Every structure is written in C-alpha cells, then in structure tokens.
C-alpha cells in the first residue's frame, strides 16, 4: 500500500466521520443541551431534598415531644414518596426512549444524566421513607404508652385477636 493510498483512506474515513457528525441536526444538539441542563438541575434539586430529609432524620433525636400526633406528616411524606416514585418511573421511561433513539450516542451524555437523576430520585424516595418511619418510632418513644397486657409467646393469636377486637 502506497503512502498515497493510505493517506486517501484516512482522508476518506475522516470525511465520512465529518459527514456523519454534520448530519446530526443542530436542532438535535440544541435539544440535547436543553435536556442535559434540565436533568442536571433536576438532579441537583433531588440531591438537595434528599440531604434535607437525611438532616431532618438526624435532628429527630433532639426533639423530645411528639412530632406528628395526628399522622398528618406521615400522610404528607407518603404523598411525597408517591410523587417522587412517579417521577422516577418517568425518568426510567425517558432514559429508555433515549436508548432507543438512534440519533443519540453515548458521548451525548443523555443516558448517563438520566441514570444519575434516577439514582438521586431513588435516594430521595428512600430518605423520605426512612424519615417517615423514624418519625413514627420517635413519637412512640415520645408519647406515654400504657403498658398493656403481656401475653405468653404461645398466645400470639390472643394478642392479635384482642388488638383487632375479635
């Protein structure tokens, strides 16, 4: 193979690469940038909210009185979990749509950005779950509880029947 032939092949490969790159419309590139910016902003918000939930969780010990005597916070946090789960599911669907879009390449970073947002949504959801549970535990300790009857270990049916009013 002569130097000229090799040079021609390299130039042809280079031309093909430039042609393929240029074929990607400017609109698509703009859409990618917008999507990445939106995902980065969303991921940042999810991370901040998860950190807030973790911080609130850590602060529970410092509070000695019941926090949620009417379960209103439990309900609100459960609703928040549902919303975050809905967002999580949408992000998974959109990531899959990105994977299926032949115009997108790995280098675009869209899939990685969706994956990061999904992980942050899960972290927030699970942090809220832990907070919700721990508020309940906290309030059990903070609320005077009558001792209630003690049952032998073999009398669990009696315990549950009494609790359920049967």
């Amino acid at each position: 193979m002569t130097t000229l032939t090799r040079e021609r092949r390299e130039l042809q490969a280079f031309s093909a690469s430039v042609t393929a790159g240029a074929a990607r419309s400017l609109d698509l590139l703009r859409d990618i940038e917008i999507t990445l910016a939106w995902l980065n902003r969303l991921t940042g918000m999810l991370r901040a909210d998860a950190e807030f939930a973790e911080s609130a969780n850590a602060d529970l010990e410092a509070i000695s009185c019941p926090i949620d005597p009417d379960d209103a916070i439990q309900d609100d946090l459960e609703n928040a979990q549902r919303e975050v789960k809905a967002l999580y599911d949408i992000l998974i669907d959109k990531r899959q749509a990105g994977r299926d879009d032949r115009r997108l390449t790995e280098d675009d970073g869209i899939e990685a950005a969706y994956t990061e947002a999904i992980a942050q949504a899960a972290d927030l959801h699970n942090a809220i779950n832990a907070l919700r549970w721990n508020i309940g535990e906290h309030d059990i300790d903070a609320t005077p509880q009558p001792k209630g009857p003690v049952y032998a270990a073999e009398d669990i049916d009696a315990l549950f029947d009494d609790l359920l009013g049967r």
Partner: protein
Amino acid sequence: MTRPHPIKRIRATTAFGEMLRKLPPEIQEAARQAVKDLVADPHPKKYRLEKQTADYWTIHVTRNHSHKLSFALEGDCAVLRKIGTHKEIDRAP
C-alpha cells in the same frame, strides 16, 4: 448481627394496635404470622430481621416488603412498637 434473645412473652404498644387496625386484613394476618415465626425463630431469614438502633429491630411482614413492623426487647418480652408501609426503590434499575 447480634441475635435478639429468645422471646417468651409479648405485648403491643397502643400505637401498634391503632396502626394494625388501619391495615387491610391480609396485612393484619401476615403480621400475625410474622410475629409467630419471629417467636419460633428469633432470626427468621425470610422476614429480613434488621437492627435499626440499640433499642429496636424491624422485620418485613410481607414477601414483597411492602410493610414492616418494629419491636423492642425488654428481657424476654418482645414489645411490638409500630407497623406500616415500607417503600424503597432501587437506585440502579
């Protein structure tokens, strides 16, 4: 993980009873069975016993991990503290 002591007696907090009564009957029955299994084996693998703090433990009540209950140990007496939904999702689906 440290195993809880063998359980010979059991009682429930008022909160546990209130929470239990709000749950669907199938979850109530799953909880009853989970507590029976806990007493029979203080470390029941299928219920994912977890030590949450120095004061209390949790077990998963249902196979799909939708509900958990927590209990404390006062000597050989298990004190049922709380039961409710437990929802965690995978961060790398």
